[in-house]
C-alpha cells in the first residue's frame, strides 16, 4: 500500500514490480500532460487533506476487491507536455479485480482528491473545469457498492 504526493517523477516499472510478489495481475494507469495548445500545466493540491483522501480512496478499493496491493502517486507543481502527472496500480490474483480496482482508483482520484490543474496556453492561463463525465464515472461505483 502506498500513497504519495510528490514533485518528482516516478518509475512505473519499479512501482509495478513492488506489487508483483503474490499477485497474478497488475493493472496500471499513467496520466500524461497532453500537448496541443497547452504549453505547461501546474498541479495544486491541499497538503494534508490530499494524502488523507488518497489513503481513503485506496482503503475503499481494498474493501471492494481482493487486492494484494495498490499504489497511487500524484505529482504536483509545474509539468510540461509529455511529462507524467500521476499513476495508479492495482494488484490482485485475478485480472478482472485488478482492472476494476484501477478504474475505480482513477474515477475516485479525479473527483474526490483535492488537486486542481491550471493550464498555460498561448491565450493565457486557465483553470481546468471539472467534467460532468468524471463525476458520473465516479458515481457508477456508488450504484454498484
Amino acid at each position, binding site marked *: 500500500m502506498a500513497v504519495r504526493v510528490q514533485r518528482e517523477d516516478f518509475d512505473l516499472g519499479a512501482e509495478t514490480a513492488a506489487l508483483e510478489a503474490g499477485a497474478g495481475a497488475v493493472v496500471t494507469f499513467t496520466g500524461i500532460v497532453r500537448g496541443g495548445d497547452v504549453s505547461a500545466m501546474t498541479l495544486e493540491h491541499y497538503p494534508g487533506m490530499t494524502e488523507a483522501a488518497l489513503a481513503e480512496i485506496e482503503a475503499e478499493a481494498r474493501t471492494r476487491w481482493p487486492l494484494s496491493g495498490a499504489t497511487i502517486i500524484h505529482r504536483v507543481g509545474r509539468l510540461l507536455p509529455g511529462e507524467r502527472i500521476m499513476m495508479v496500480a492495482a494488484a490482485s490474483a485475478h485480472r478482472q479485480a485488478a482492472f476494476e480496482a484501477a478504474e475505480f482508483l482513477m474515477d475516485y482520484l479525479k473527483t474526490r482528491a483535492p488537486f*486542481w490543474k491550471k493550464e498555460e496556453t498561448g491565450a493565457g492561463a486557465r483553470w481546468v473545469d471539472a467534467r460532468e463525465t468524471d463525476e458520473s464515472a465516479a458515481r457508477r461505483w456508488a450504484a454498484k457498492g
Partner: protein
Amino acid sequence: MKVLYFAWLRERIGESAEEVSAEGLETVADLVAHLRARGPRYEAAFEAPEAVRVAVDQKVRDWDAPLKGAGEVAFFPPMTGG
C-alpha cells in the same frame, strides 16, 4: 479558525490562508456571507456558490455544515486531479 483558499478562489482573494474569528458564525454558509461582506475580492471568489466546494477539518462538507469546533475551513473549486 484557519480559512484556506485554493486554485481560482485563492487567486481571486489574493490569499492562500487567513485567520477568521468564528464568533457568531454557525455554519459554512454564515462564514461565506461574512467573507463576501469584506469586499469585491471575496465577492468575486464566491459569486457562483454552486462552483465552490468546502472542506471542514479536511473533510468535504455541505454549506450547512456547522462550524462548531472547526479548526480549518477550506474553499476550492471542484477537484480536477488525475
